């Protein structure tokens, strides 16, 4: 990383997310749970970083802390060089939840327009943004439908369009495809990768699927439970163009194997 700081302007090297000795503890006394401990991590602009690990490893907690939805109890955490709270107030990130969390009383278009509505943008701007982003996730024809009229995969795509509507430079995704079948998930993975390539945003992606993490990421953060911590950070150097069948190449399988080994080392399979 040192050579980068000498050749590139500081804006490119400055970390979007930086965690130093971060820890998060829930409860106290007998009910004390260490969700995260001694987390050191820097995520650079334009990276696609996956957090992977079994349930209870704190990957979602880490993501929620970045989003200022959980409060760190120790260490230091910054987003765009500011506190997570400041970054949230500046609407620095878009967040995609495990479930679509669409508002059932709004049609798809109005769901996608919700963030811009709260940010006080004009109706014309909201409409244009909704049109653009629904096109991006392939839902243009469904703008006037209501969430319950769409399949689970389509709902999740709508929630991604909603997160993209205000063009955040940072996209936080919490197991967004966890509840979907594998075929739908493959399709959405291709979509997401395509989107990331075109927009040059930074993505932090929580998953418990090894192939998904290897396929999507430039770096994979392997985490382990009890207490939640980072056990390894593995680069996934498969290039930016990744057709689905890259998953059958030896390079892909090698990275996947490294991830599995790291999960073992973290005794995640106990």
């Amino acid at each position, binding site marked *: 990383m040192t050579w980068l700081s000498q050749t590139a302007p500081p804006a490119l090297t400055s970390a979007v997310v930086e965690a130093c000795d971060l820890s998060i503890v829930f409860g106290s006394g007998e009910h004390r749970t260490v969700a995260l401990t001694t987390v050191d991590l820097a995520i650079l602009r334009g990276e696609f970083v996956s957090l992977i690990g079994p349930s209870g490893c704190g990957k979602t907690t880490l993501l929620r802390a970045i989003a200022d939805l959980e409060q760190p109890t120790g260490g230091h955490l910054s987003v765009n060089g500011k506190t997570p709270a400041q970054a949230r107030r500046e609407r620095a990130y878009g*967040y995609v*939840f495990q479930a679509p969390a669409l508002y059932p*009383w709004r049609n798809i278009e109005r769901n996608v327009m919700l963030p811009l509505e709260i940010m006080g943008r004009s109706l014309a701007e909201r409409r244009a943004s909704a049109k653009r982003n629904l096109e991006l996730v392939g839902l243009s024809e469904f703008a006037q439908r209501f969430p*319950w009229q769409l399949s689970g995969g389509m709902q999740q795509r709508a929630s991604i369009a909603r997160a993209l509507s205000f063009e955040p430079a940072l996209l936080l995704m919490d197991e967004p495809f966890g509840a979907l079948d594998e075929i739908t998930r493959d399709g959405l993975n291709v979509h997401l990768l395509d989107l990331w390539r075109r927009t040059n945003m930074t993505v932090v992606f929580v998953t418990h699927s090894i192939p998904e993490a290897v396929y999507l990421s430039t770096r994979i953060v392997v985490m382990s439970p009890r207490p939640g911590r980072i056990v390894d950070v593995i680069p996934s150097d498969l290039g930016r163009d990744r057709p689905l069948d890259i998953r059958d190449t030896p390079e892909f399988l090698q990275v996947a194997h490294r991830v599995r080994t790291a999960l073992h080392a973290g005794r995640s399979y106990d």
Partner: protein
Amino acid sequence: MIRGAARRAAPIVVVLLGLVGMWYAAALALDLRAGQALAGSGASPQALIAAAWSLERPLLPAPHQVAQAVWSGLFGEPLGSARSLLYHAGVTALTAALGFALALVFGIALAVSIVHVRTLDRSLMPWVVASQTVPVLAIAPMVVVVLGNIGLTGVLPKALIAGWLSFFPITTAMVTGLRSPDRMQFDLMRTYSASGRDIFAKLRWPASMAFLFAGVKVAATLAVVGAIVAELPTGAQAGLGARLLAGSYYGQTLQIWAALIAAALLTLLAVGAADCAQRVLVARRGGRL
């Protein structure tokens, strides 16, 4: 399609015919003695039955007598007349509507403050529940007397009693409804750094509508009940409650039954209006509330 409708309607019609038959039989049993007195000792059985079913003050009037009393009360009297059922129903409807409107505004405001201020949740909610354990028949005369003393008479004291009964289902439904969004829906608002006003207007309020309408339908019926109860002790000259009271003073059973049926129709109308409002909202939401 017509055959399908007929098939669905058939059991309802059978039950209805059964009930009407039982009603006629009961009317005959209860009114036979008075019928005998009217028809004289030598009357044929047919004349006896006809007499029992056409008494002026039957113990239990026959269905056609009630129907006739309702019909002539609604449409057979001039509107200004004290015998016009339509006039009395109108007075009760006005009281109920005003009481319901008060309950809607007050009930929703109360729910909003209970949801947003934690201390109010603990301090107010028990009183809201307690307010409903007081028998409204006991409260009504006191409200009327106290308000009458400070110069408030007419429709307002009665509307307050109707509102007293009907704010409760609205408040409890709205408290539940405003709290109904799940954590993820609230978290979403937080990621947008949404203001409290936005969270209310764009999340809590629209999420509460399904609950509100459930409460509104109960409240609409209670507003009619409350209006009628309020007309009993106010010494009211007008309203369905006054008709019920006057009818029981003078043993005018037909008048009582006609007022009862009118009250039931009024309640149906109130619930139907709430249902219409709900349908409009459901249509705007693409078919679901």
